[in-house]
């Protein structure tokens, strides 16, 4: 019940109808994929959604190549464009002014906060990040990533992360993902969540596997069906 309440408070609680979520997590844990899917799901419901690329370490590898496609699906996407920057990479990246003020925009805000523990500190640069009543910081976990492969590893990771309000089980093995590996992820992640006192918000699964799992995973966490967009961000 508490999990349900947590998940739906913004939508149903009458306090606010804004959804404001920041997706953080270990490098390559699937933050961008989960954030994109969340933003598109909300847009599908007819909501006004802004998706914000907050990776200032490696903007060359994140949402930038997908910006046009995502915009065409009705999202407002705040991310650099190639022609706007001189030398993506170690030449020094700055936070776009528009991104810094993202939390002041109307509608739902989905923040994709790149690059692990260090990247998560980018959130501190956002105006209103400390006071926004609707902001939820969600940690994306994939247990096939060796650094977050066990309950102990996850607990150690959470200790480094700073603020975490909810956890997403995004366990997968790319094209080799099976229902079993997702459920195994659910077991490990839920145990880590129980021991850290942070709720599990959802388990994600690509659409075909989500259909096989059903609306809840083996531990009762809601299942979010996702489509894979990030492979298109490479080549």
């Amino acid at each position, binding site marked *: 019940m508490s999990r349900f309440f947590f998940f739906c408070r913004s939508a149903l609680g009458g306090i606010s109808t804004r959804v404001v979520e920041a997706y953080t997590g270990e*490098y*390559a844990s699937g933050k961008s994929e989960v954030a994109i899917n969340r933003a598109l799901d909300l847009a599908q419901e007819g909501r006004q959604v802004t998706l914000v690329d907050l990776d200032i370490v*490696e903007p*060359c*590898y994140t949402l930038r190549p997908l910006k046009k496609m995502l915009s065409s699906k009705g999202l407002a996407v705040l991310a650099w464009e190639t022609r706007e920057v001189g*030398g*993506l*990479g*170690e*030449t020094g990246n700055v936070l776009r002014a528009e991104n810094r003020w993202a939390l002041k925009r109307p509608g739902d805000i989905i923040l994709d906060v790149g690059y692990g523990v260090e990247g998560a500190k980018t959130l501190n640069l956002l105006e209103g990040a400390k006071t926004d009543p609707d902001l939820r910081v969600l940690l994306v976990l*994939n247990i*096939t*990533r*060796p*650094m977050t*492969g*066990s309950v102990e*590893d996850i607990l150690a990771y959470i200790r480094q992360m700073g603020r975490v309000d909810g956890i997403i089980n995004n366990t*997968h*093995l*790319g*094209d*080799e993902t099976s229902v079993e590996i997702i459920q195994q992820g659910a077991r490990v992640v839920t145990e880590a969540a129980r021991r850290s006192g942070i709720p599990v918000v959802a388990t994600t699964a690509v659409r075909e596997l989500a259909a096989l799992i059903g609306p809840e995973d083996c531990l009762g966490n809601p299942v979010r069906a996702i489509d894979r967009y990030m492979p298109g961000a*490479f*080549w």
Partner: protein
Amino acid sequence: MSKDKPLEGEKRVFMTGNEVVAWAALAADADIMFGYPITPQNEIMHYWTRLAPKFGRDFLQTEDELSAGFTTLGGVLAGRKSFTATAGPGNTLMQEPMSMAEAMRLPMVAIITQRGGPSTGTVIYSQQEVTMTTLGGNGEGLRIVYSTATHQELFDYTIKAFNTAWKYRFPTFVLGDGYQSKMRESLTMYDPAERGIKIIPPEPYFGKPGVPGVDRPPSQLRNTYNMEEELYEVVEHYLRDYSKMAPEVAEYHAYYVDDAKLVVVAHGVVARAALMAVRELREEGYKVGYFRPVTLRPLPEKELREVAARTPKFLVAESANGQLARLLKEGAYGCTTEMLPLFRPGMGITPEEIITEVKKILG
């Protein structure tokens, strides 16, 4: 993750290429990494520095790549399995220590994640560091270079690189690229011992037992000589060792080459696209083959020449302006096969582009 052993048994995992390298170096019992940050190599350092303290390994960040290269050699001289990783302009700076490793037969291991050039170029991707990694530095290119194509190979060949280096005492390179560094892909990580891979232990170059000159030859390590003849004698000796080693180390993959009218030749990540293209073309009835040198130095010369001798045309696909093609032309000198280019310096090459090019050539 165990506190004593980085890997136990086998585990299917989902990782970026840079992380794979850090884990493989742990599995190969590497003692210390020396490095200086550069994209797209950075996460090799990031993950090594996160993992090393858990398993009693060390790391030193130096002031630049020149220093990172030389400190890696210092680690080797002290009998520690030492490695470094760099890319692009960092690779350029490291040529002097790499050349010294050739001169003193020091088994340094370096992971190169190619980025676009010349100069700072892009941080993203290329295959433009082939010439520099195989033949850079003054001297004769007495190096071993493995060009990987998948995350599984990054794991396998990083482990192998340490063994090859310490067995033959030539500097050894794992030549990756920015795409492989950042790509996410599954692979199996394993404890080499459980697969029957014997990890060759390092040994110090100095302070060996016995009296130097009496019980054993003295450890005299030089990279400078007085006269031409002295140096000539040493280099000739090294070249003989290298020629003897070459057939033991050279590796390649060849498919569908027996009846091929055209063979697509590629290395590294482009070889993936090449193999996909060749398989699709075969299904359509085209007589095409696939040849991939895994070692770019030494080149699998015998096998290359065999394929070149019976194939009318090679299509050389690479993300550089003919750096692989130059090696192939030298290796297959005298063969009459025509070498056609599909050169895209600093750009990825897709299977579709290769298919289109092959169809244009074969009609």
